[in-house]
């Protein structure tokens, strides 16, 4: 479990997307090749901005999981802390994802907060 999480730290803590210089699209998680341009694509790493909007959401075991689109078009599936509706603006936040029992490591990553609930 530890190495599996460690490999994801880079793009869970800071949201890094793949930007294709050929088609101008952003992808999250990062890709090896551009899904649209395939071999013609030229990918480089780019950070997303802090804000996005909710495209859709579902509630699983009391947790709200939303598909959030960043202003640059990259999409991310993550938990939203607070009440949400489709189209609502959200801000990214650094939160705990969970922990591996009482003895294991603590998982951190990016979640979202509805804008009017941010503080």
């Amino acid at each position, binding site marked *: 479990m530890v190495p599996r999480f460690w490999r994801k*730290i*880079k793009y869970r*803590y*800071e949201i890094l997307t793949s930007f294709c210089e050929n088609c101008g699209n952003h992808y999250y998680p990062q890709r090896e090749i551009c899904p649209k341009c395939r071999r013609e694509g030229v990918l480089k790493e780019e*950070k997303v901005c802090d804000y996005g909007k909710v495209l859709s959401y579902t509630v699983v075991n009391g947790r709200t999981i939303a598909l959030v689109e960043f202003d640059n078009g990259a999409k991310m599936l993550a938990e939203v*802390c607070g009440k949400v509706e489709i189209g609502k603006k959200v801000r990214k*936040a*650094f*939160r*705990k*994802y969970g922990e591996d029992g009482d003895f294991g*490591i*603590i998982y*951190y990553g990016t*979640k979202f907060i509805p804008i009017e*609930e941010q*503080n």
Partner: protein
Amino acid sequence: MIGIVSYGTYIPKFRIRVEEIARMWNEDSNAIKQGLGVSEKSVPDIDEDTATMSVEASREAISRAKIDPKKIEAIFVGSESHPYAVKPTATIVGEALGVGNYYFCADLEFACKAATAGIQICFAMVKAGMINYGLSIGSDTAQAKPGDALEYTAAAGAVAVIVGKDPIAEIEATVSYTSDTPDFWRRDLQPYPSHGGRFTGTPAYFRHVISAAKKLMESYGYTAKDFDFAVFHQPNAKFPQRVASMLGFSEEKIADGMLVRAIGNTYSASSLMGLCGILDKAQPGQRILLVSFGSGAGSDAFAIRVTDKILEYPRNAKVWDKAKNCVYIDYGLYLKHRRMIK
């Protein structure tokens, strides 16, 4: 000129009122509110801890100053509620901020004054030419045993201070006063701290805060009149009020920093949260006295002078607005948020 280049704060949005806690223990809430001068305290969300709040406060500090995170070459996190007993919080913060891998880093622990010690270390490192910018963070999700007097004030919050050259507030001088005084402690592997009751007052808080402040003034030739604002560590509202009057500061000079009234004692973030409340409105040329207190015990005193650079520095959202923007929860939810029930 070396000092505070930027600052950021984070206060969780949840609050619990003193009345709600007093209801559980059949205590007189009015007497408690009067005795402490605190009416409610901040409570973290279930997925928030010292590391997450540190990151949020630091991100605000970095974005306000528009500093390239890679130029931050030292990170110190002061807390008494680090998520791990062994494994630094500061590395989690460094990774989330994207500072790269070449940076000095350590977690600090000195009860509620670890972050002002971090500022002193950053100040010295910038002065020595070892780093461009240093980040010192005070962050705590304070623990309190249910039913203990601490439960009314033990709150959560974080402050991040970036120290460097060309500051918005120059650190003119700093002095520390330290002694072995066991007024408040938490033994290894114990979930809640213990304290010496009234012993936390005169021999601990007052002796250290006053000794550090007086030494700073004597050594550098200041009097109380030289300071436009003063901020002291805030375990409750009464202690800083009393120490202010003992040192010759009026109620007006401390009012802007008295965040404890709205959010309780944020431990390692407490005195710095007050400093940020003052920096949010201070004008160039104004001087601030900051004195932290950490049980065990010690105080760090600072003379801080606001520079012209603060006029072009973005100071929204203000700390007091963050303190007022809140959602109240009951005792059951409080226990869940603090993970006392799972």
